[in-house]
């Protein structure tokens, strides 16, 4: 019962924030609503017993990536953009195609719904020492993707520094 309340609360918050992200005229307000959407997603992770992922989402996504976004928004003067047209000329086509995509997904989920319950769902305690389990998986089976991800971050850092320099 508490599960349901928490899930519907965070789901509603996420969806409402997402709609506000894509429809606001002011970019700073969009950024604030994206922060709310990310925190709502973190809440859903917590409800799914993924505690480590919850805190990683808060620290990295909401506390790192969004700070980067907010910095860039504040360093670029966006007063001009408040008076421009917000949606491009083919907005109706984009909306239609995205809704068709959504309808496809809905049909797929609705048809496949009964096939998704293979036996009993695992008990919540299977995910219990969340940090330890993620660490074990990350450093044993998925060591290669882990190393590749660290090289990716190094490349991104070098790329961002080069991009920001005035003279290379």
């Amino acid at each position, binding site marked *: 019962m508490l599960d349901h309340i928490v899930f519907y609360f965070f789901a509603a918050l996420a969806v409402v924030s997402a709609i506000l992200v894509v429809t606001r005229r002011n970019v700073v307000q969009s950024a604030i609503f994206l922060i709310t959407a990310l925190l709502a997603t973190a809440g859903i992770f917590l409800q799914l017993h993924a505690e480590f992922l919850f805190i990683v989402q808060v620290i990295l996504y909401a*506390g790192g990536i969004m700070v980067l976004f907010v910095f860039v928004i*504040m360093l670029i003067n966006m007063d001009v953009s408040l008076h421009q047209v917000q949606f491009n000329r083919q907005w109706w086509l984009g909306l239609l195609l995205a809704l068709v995509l959504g309808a496809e997904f809905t049909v797929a989920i609705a048809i496949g719904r009964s096939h998704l319950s293979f036996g009993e769902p695992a008990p919540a305690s299977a995910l219990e020492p969340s940090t330890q389990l993620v660490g074990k998986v990350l450093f044993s089976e998925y060591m290669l993707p882990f190393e590749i991800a660290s090289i990716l971050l190094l490349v991104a850092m070098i790329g961002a520094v080069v991009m920001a320099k005035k003279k290379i």
Partner: protein
Amino acid sequence: MLMNVLHFVISIWVPLVCALIIVAVLPLVAGYIVLMERKVMADMQARLGPMRVGPHGLLQPIADALKLLIKEDIIPDEADKAIFWFAPLISVTAAMLAMSALAIGPWFQIADLNVGLLFVVGISALGIFGIVLGGWSSNSHYSLLGALRSAAQLVSYETAAGMAIVGGLLLAGTLSTREIIQAQNDYGVWFAIAAPVGFFVYLVASIAETNRAPFDLPEAESELVAGYMTEYSGFRWALYFLAEYTNMVVVASIATTLFLGGWLRPFAGTPAFNFLDYLPSVLMLGIGGYCFYRAPKQPVKVQSLFMVAVGLLMILAAIILAAPLIPAVSNLLPGLKPGLHGAFWFLLKVGLYIYLFMWLRFTFPRYRFDQLMRLGWQFLIPLSIVNVMGIGLALVLHRHWGWGHLPAFGLTTLLTLAVAAWLGWAEEKKDKVHVFVGET
């Protein structure tokens, strides 16, 4: 349905009471930390500090709070009103929410999360948004610059603080605050002694994290007016101030939990030091005696009565703290001693850490912003990474190769200090050959 809700609320009454106490008491505590800072500042500058409002200035925070509440609420003309209103709330909420995973004594914790320590670090990192949005929504150059500088400083030192915490977590093996303190109990030694370089890095990073001197350029009065707080007046400013001092308490609590043994008495496992159990009561008796001694010397009769009342309160606290030491009482309520004494030691350590902050504030001159960033990125972050590697090495030496505690941790501390010395020497050398070639 209503019965379900009622049952649920009754089952979580302990966290609820703790939360109510934190929300109600923390603003008052923050006010008295401000008073403590002014008194310590005065002491280090050979003067007396606030003495007028209440005996020895003890009612100064209440007067300040009243003044801030009745001040005029000024909102700049072109400011984005919704965000201007919302920004201090983000700071205060983040700071107070971070208190919820910390255990002040074995009895007093709102939620013992699996990822407790990381939760505190992450949520206090969300306070950056309060600063940036506040500075931006004020629609003023000083505010925006101050806000961006402050946020850049916070983000830089967050990495160093996080890596220093990881160094301590390697020793603890768990992220839950309760179990970290239990691990320090099992180890027999506080992690500040086993990993002193990590503790030092966390100390410096936490001073920068809370925008305290010598890292307080973004809010120094002579630099950028008041940085992001320039356009805030009255109660909104008080909210920012409350957020800053609550952040200090949070950061001190993290350091106490992870490095200074939390609610453990010094030498908790050694029976030879059991006389330290009497220290809380003796301390309270000492303060009460001092209050009685100063009471007749007050200029005004009301203040004398107030001092006598404070003295009696201290005597009462001494009696309450001494109660668990009587065998009859401790047989009746076995949880009383860890609860009361644990809370006392935790608050004492937090108080000493905050006193250290204040001591450093009134001793060192301010860092310039580029020096600050250089210190963070080019000294503290490499040092904290080397510290993590060093503690890993120490654990391998201790657990797999069977070295004792002292040789293993002593060796790695020496190695880390050598790396720190080399980093510092490299910085010095770089300064000496700084020839200005006119390029930007």
